[in-house]
């Protein structure tokens, strides 16, 4: 009898909200779930073993071999950040190189690799086709640093897939997401939104839960290659602003991307990555036909539904979440308890309960 596949899954970058959601979805479906990140987990998950590990070091290979991981879900990729370009490059490209090196080799136990990427891999230019298919990723040389990093890491994953035919690699290009954590979400949450004069770009959005579902499906599946993941349909920026109950202030000069980003940062405090400045001028829409066909699944929320969800959630009060260290402690405790239950009848008296 062959063991069920996947049986031992490792999620990197599990401490961001998307990673936590993917872990929550995968937990009931796989026997062994491991997660690693540099930061403490954001929410407790008793079915997951958490390891502190830095992707930028080669420890990941050791981890993969020791734990005999067969499926790696690589989510420690920065797809949206206004932080320093160098730090982003370190995490995205060097981190991915380490993960790939850890999974490589003929003796490797890894048979499935899912890499998170983003719609940002295309960038946005006026001369690009209106609807971007998967093979159009490197139309330009990458105007912004995130686009360049994503192109590079996708190239690395592609090369890895060619050299290691026994490992199936899927690259999930997630659409732009609007949450409190993403730059686009923070940008749209302002009461007055500075926009580029004379532009009303088409935006294609992806709801957070659809993103997590797509990654989880990919982890359990066999599909290979790059996949665009985004909601159906298009929302114009002006529509999105109206839905968010905000007002647009079309004052930003066109083409002056850097100056405009500075202006947005000084007026609203939102650090807009440079690829988003391009998207806010020229728009970005992708073709998800491959995803629909090969996964026989499509995101439950359209682009319009994604922004509606965000707009409705905006006014709700956020329930104060426990601080991460507490969460971490709680998780450690739950795991210890679970392990004790599983192993020793001798401890049964100590952990009495149903």
């Amino acid at each position: 009898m062959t063991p069920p596949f996947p049986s031992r899954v490792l999620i990197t970058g599990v401490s961001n909200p998307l990673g936590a959601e993917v872990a929550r979805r995968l937990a009931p479906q796989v026997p062994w779930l491991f997660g690693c990140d540099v930061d403490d987990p954001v929410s407790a998950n008793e079915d997951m073993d958490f390891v502190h590990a830095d992707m930028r070091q080669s420890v990941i290979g050791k981890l993969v071999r020791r734990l005999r991981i067969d499926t790696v879900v690589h989510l420690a990729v920065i797809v949206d950040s206004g932080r320093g370009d160098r730090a982003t490059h370190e995490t995205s490209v060097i981190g991915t190189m380490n993960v790939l090196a850890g999974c490589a080799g003929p003796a490797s136990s890894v048979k499935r690799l899912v890499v998170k990427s983003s719609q940002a891999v295309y960038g946005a230019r006026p001369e690009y086709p209106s609807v971007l298919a998967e093979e159009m990723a490197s139309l330009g040389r990458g105007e912004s640093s995130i686009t360049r990093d994503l192109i590079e890491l996708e190239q690395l994953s592609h090369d890895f897939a060619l050299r290691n035919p026994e490992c199936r690699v899927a690259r999930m290009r997630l659409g732009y997401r609007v949450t409190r954590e993403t730059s686009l979400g923070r940008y749209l949450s302002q009461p007055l939104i500075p926009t580029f004069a004379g532009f009303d770009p088409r935006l294609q959005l992806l709801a957070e839960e659809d993103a997590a579902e797509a990654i989880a499906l990919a982890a359990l599946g066999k599909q290979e290659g790059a996949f665009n993941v985004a909601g159906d349909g298009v929302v114009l920026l002006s529509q999105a602003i109206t839905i968010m109950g905000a007002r647009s202030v079309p004052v930003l000069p066109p083409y002056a991307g850097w100056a405009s980003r500075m202006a947005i940062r000084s007026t609203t405090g939102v650090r807009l990555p440079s690829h988003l400045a391009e998207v806010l001028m020229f728009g970005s829409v992708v073709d998800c036909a491959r995803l629909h066909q090969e996964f026989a699944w499509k995101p439950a929320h359209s682009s319009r539904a994604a922004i509606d969800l965000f707009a409705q959630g905006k006014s709700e009060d956020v329930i104060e979440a426990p601080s991460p260290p507490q969460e971490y402690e709680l998780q450690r405790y739950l795991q210890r308890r679970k392990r004790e239950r599983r192993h020793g009848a001798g401890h049964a008296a100590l952990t009495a309960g149903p």
Partner: protein
Amino acid sequence: MSRDTVAVYTDAPRVRRRHSRDAKVVTPAPGLRMPRAVRRLRRNAPMYAIQGLSDLSTRLRELTGREIIDMNRVMELVQFAYQQQQLAKRGANYVVDDFGFDAEWTESFLPIFKALYRDYWRVETSGMEHVPSSGRTLLVANHAGVLPWDGTMIKTALFVEHPHPRHARALVASLFMGMPFLSWFLRRTGQTVGHPDDTRRLLERDQLVLVFPEGVRGTGKLYADRYKLRRFGRGGFVSTAIRAGAPIVPVSVVGAEEIYPMIADVPALAKLMGLPYFPVTPFWPWLGPLGMIPLPSKWRIQFHEPVHVEVHPPEAADDQNLVMALSDEVRDTIQQGVYDNLKLRRGVFI
């Protein structure tokens, strides 16, 4: 009236309120409330104005025996204003397609383009029966005039003259898709970037696609070179049509060459401003914005018999020999159509 009908009527507003997502209580704006008579007058003012104008129109017709004020045209303008008001009210509750096309918004501008079509350029259109009522079709036309007014007139013709009005989706040079305001207007009214992939996608959605293979070489030619068709690209439009299985309908336009008689081009200025050409006409740039008003030449548009490229298998799209031959066939049809229509036109402005 039965009791059921009454029940339906009384139920209606409650049901609607439950389904509306962003229902909010509308309170009257605080401030001075006008007396009832003033409010009524303000509400009815547009109606009174139209009535007065209509009376005046009838009186003038009786006096002179000619139509001085055409009430149909006036009503079209009123309708335009009303539609704009209605469009402003829809907020974010509308849908654009993947290319950013907003059909409702586009149709609201039709009265203006119809007025240009009928009264300004007095366009005479023939061969509309060659444009199918449904299904994918590629319209190929000659391009002239400094600004693409010929595209708008072909689109208007399809809406005014065709028994089943259709939106033509024109392909625009990528240069214009990067320009503020212009790109916004073009996308919103159904245009998209001139990329083979966009053409394929639109044809696969059974749309009517309008392409000008001459591109800016056509619009940027001098008045002395008028009605001499330029090279039709590399025949890329034929390959795309063969792959998508769409017939090609050649369209010849006469009249667009004279709207801005371009006597010279200043390449240095064009390069400086990032434009494909910088035109000099008798009025531009000397008169400033007034120089952008197109001249009222007499136009003729002819839709020719389709060239059925869809009979070829998709692999034929890679046969450069066949593609160039078909491209030349389309070009010759248009060139011949241009000459025919020039003969039929009595003069440039009549």
